[in-house]
């Protein structure tokens, strides 16, 4: 089947694949930047094989006229510099019969896994074309070809290449020539996927990953001390923060393990400096005991968990939402704490900033549940709004009379004396204690302090930020985190077919907000809970804490594949008709 002749579209998805060293990531990043420079929104994710280096890799780029934060149902173009083991990505690279496969005939046949989509395979001699340019590279040819296929303006592409090669001017000319050769080669291809014109840029745009956004949100929220231990996919957050903190007067310390990192930030925060660590599931598991200490000693800390596929070491490079249980319930004893989840790349900034603010305001630990998808996706986003949320800890003045660190106040929050303050020295304790912090095993003290620690979280006004609530109607979908964007796109699509429902994407997962959710769901007859876990962790959590109205269904599935709009549309169809 020959692809249809092109009507311009609002969104195009492209994947560029090849073996390690083929430069698909470089080209992918240039394509993303070119799209950005041309005024488009865009999103790039990446996959690579099990090899540490030198294995196969794929850059997946979606370019659109409006903000995009999730993958499309299928890719329009799959271009491969070579086919080495690329078939391993088959499940991650859905194609349609209307898609186009571009491959270099000298590098062998396109794998059957892709061809069975019915998409035509157009041979392009990428390598030969590159060789014809002194110092030329096939990935640059592919870049030109892909840019032309989707109609990106040549100037943007050239500028993106120039920016990227700023430090290697010697290879610039050959690269630009390669891009041009690719653009020329595109002419002969049996299909094109032109984009609609880019929208007028009404606001500034950023090119940012979720990990960077979270790091920046933390700094905006006031974090100035970070201790951490590397772990995929949290490491980049730390790698971004290390130099950034140094610039703003903070510091990042690489700890010997996660037990050290959580306790280091507890120490720093006890010293009055808002502090954070970032990790992923296995690391969060190791921090659990000491998160209980943060709760009991009322020391605010922020832990960003960039979730990956579990259990155990699982699939470290892929996304899932299955650390939810651990984050909500992991602490031993009754240990109220905050759990928040960003629901887009740029929301990583807001949510982490807000989490820092809330942790400091409540003197409790906050866990931010990001995930590999959000954390490692690089996106063109509208510059996020400036936010007022910053660390504002209630501290004790010098020589406060009859100072009691754990005083039983109405709000539960009691002023925290910062070391150095005269006249208010106290010992913070993870043993149960009385108001002064002195250990106590009396039932009355235990109950009073349990109530106090709970009250702190219940007396904060979370305002409208607890969730993004959208739409109308008697049906409602409740979701969180990186499922939100594909659900939104599914809604948009289903709405065209007359579907009408509310969408609640919960940002504040704990403490639960029963009154707010009841409000958001008032009049709803049916609820569908959507999440990326195997056991329905979010669904079960909602059941346990909320009285959901009407009949409640659950759609969940584990990673590693990202949620796509079509899969959700089909769920919505079944469910809304059920």
């Amino acid at each position: 089947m020959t692809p249809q002749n092109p009507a311009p579209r609002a969104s195009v998805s492209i994947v560029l694949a090849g073996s390690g060293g083929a430069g698909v990531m470089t080209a992918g990043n240039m394509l993303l930047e070119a799209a950005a420079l041309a005024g488009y929104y865009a999103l790039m994710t990446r996959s690579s094989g099990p090899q540490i280096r030198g294995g196969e890799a794929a850059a997946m780029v979606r370019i659109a006229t409006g903000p995009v934060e999730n993958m499309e149902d299928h890719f329009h173009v799959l271009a491969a510099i070579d086919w080495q083991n690329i078939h391993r990505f088959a499940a991650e690279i859905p194609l349609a019969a209307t898609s186009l496969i571009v491959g270099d005939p000298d590098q062998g046949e396109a794998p059957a896994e892709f061809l069975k989509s019915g998409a035509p395979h157009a041979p392009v001699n990428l390598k030969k074309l590159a060789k014809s340019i002194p110092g030329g590279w096939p990935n640059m040819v592919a870049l030109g070809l892909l840019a032309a296929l989707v109609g990106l303006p040549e100037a943007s592409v050239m500028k993106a290449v120039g920016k990227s090669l700023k430090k290697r001017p010697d290879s610039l000319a050959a690269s630009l020539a390669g891009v041009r050769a690719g653009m020329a080669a595109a002419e002969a291809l049996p299909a094109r996927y032109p984009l609609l014109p880019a929208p007028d840029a009404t606001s500034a745009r950023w090119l940012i990953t979720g990990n960077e956004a979270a790091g920046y949100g933390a700094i905006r929220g006031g974090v100035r001390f970070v201790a951490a231990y590397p772990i995929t996919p949290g490491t980049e957050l730390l790698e971004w923060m290390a130099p950034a903190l140094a610039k703003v007067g903070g510091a990042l310390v690489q700890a010997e393990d996660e037990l050290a990192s959580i306790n280091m930030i507890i120490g720093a925060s006890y010293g009055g400096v808002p502090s954070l660590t970032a990790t992923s599931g296995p690391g969060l598991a190791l921090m659990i005991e000491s998160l209980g200490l943060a709760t009991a000693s009322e020391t605010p800390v922020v832990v960003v968990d960039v979730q990956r596929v579990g259990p155990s070491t699982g699939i470290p490079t892929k996304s899932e939402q299955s650390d939810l249980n651990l984050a909500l319930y992991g602490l031993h004893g009754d240990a109220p704490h905050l759990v928040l989840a960003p629901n887009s790349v740029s929301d990583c900034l807001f949510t982490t900033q807000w989490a820092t603010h809330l942790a400091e305001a409540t003197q409790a630990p906050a866990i931010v549940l990001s995930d590999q998808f959000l954390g490692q996706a690089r996106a063109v986003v509208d510059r996020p709004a400036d936010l007022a949320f910053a660390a504002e800890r209630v501290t004790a003045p010098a020589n406060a009379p009859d100072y009691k660190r754990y005083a039983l106040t109405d709000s539960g929050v009691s002023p925290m004396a910062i070391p150095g303050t005269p006249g208010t020295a106290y010992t913070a304790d993870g043993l149960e204690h009385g108001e002064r912090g002195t250990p106590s095993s009396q039932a009355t003290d235990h109950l009073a302090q349990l109530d106090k620690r709970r009250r702190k979280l219940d007396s904060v006004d979370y305002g409208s930020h607890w969730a993004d609530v959208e739409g109308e109607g008697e049906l409602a979908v409740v979701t969180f985190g990186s499922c939100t964007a594909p659900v939104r796109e599914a809604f948009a699509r289903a709405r065209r077919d007359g579907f009408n429902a509310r969408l609640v994407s919960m940002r504040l997962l704990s403490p639960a907000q029963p009154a707010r959710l009841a409000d958001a769901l008032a009049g709803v007859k049916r609820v569908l809970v959507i999440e990326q876990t195997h056991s329905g962790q979010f669904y079960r959590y909602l059941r346990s804490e909320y009285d959901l109205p009407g009949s409640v269904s659950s759609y969940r599935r584990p990673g590693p594949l990202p949620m796509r709009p079509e899969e959700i549309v089909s769920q919505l169809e079944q469910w809304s008709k059920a």
Partner: protein
Amino acid sequence: MNANAAAALAPKDFKSEVKPVWCPGCGDYSVLSSITKAFAKLALRVENVAVVSGIGCSSRIPAYTTCYGFHGVHGRALAVGTGLKLARPDLTVLVAGGDGDGYSIGGNHFMHACRRNVDLTYIVMDNRVYGMTKGQASPTTEPDWESSKLTPEGTGLREFHPLVIALASGANFIARAFSGDPNGTAEIIAEAIRTPGFSFVEILSPCVTFRPEQRLWKDKVHDAPVKPTSDPSQAARRILTDDGFNIGVLYVGHRKTYQPPIGKGAKQAADLEAGFAL
């Protein structure tokens, strides 16, 4: 705190009203006295000192001082103290605890704290037993000690050598003290605090309840026959031939303290946005 806040403080000003949970005769009482003496000797202010600990009898010590204190979880005191000192270099940070806390569950942080060489002082009240949990073997317990029900035939394990490990890992100040000599111990602690970098003081502090035979330590300890050295291999030779009861400062090095500049950044948070802008 009285109005005359700048007056010199006496040891008793560093001792709180909280009654220790310790058994009568426990060596840790004297360690507490030595610490408060050292603080007074160094003319420290209570509000500028933080005492950080883990869990154990000995780890109860922070609340028995009038300083800022942090009584954390078992084995993680050095990590808390490290974070605190790095974030607040202006404070004097004393980390204190037991042999179980520091050498068993906390052993990794001990090694890495020695390597990291943050300017803090670490005191271990070593009684060669887990006092708090009622008498199990610790890493420093003799392999043939058979009084724990958990290891009724003795552990059979070679003792952990704290001074050797501290030296091998890079601690900048290494000393052994004995709780039975509170003045000498106070001197050593003061010296440890004064010396920049990571200072480690192993204090033999008897557990009269589960190791009553340690009451005899007072007859065994003796001053180290030599002066402190700054030569690691000389120090190594000395500790390796040590009888375990040499008291005094063993090693004082000159390693650079680890302290990232904090509070000294030239930029505002918003300046970082340039990195994202298109």
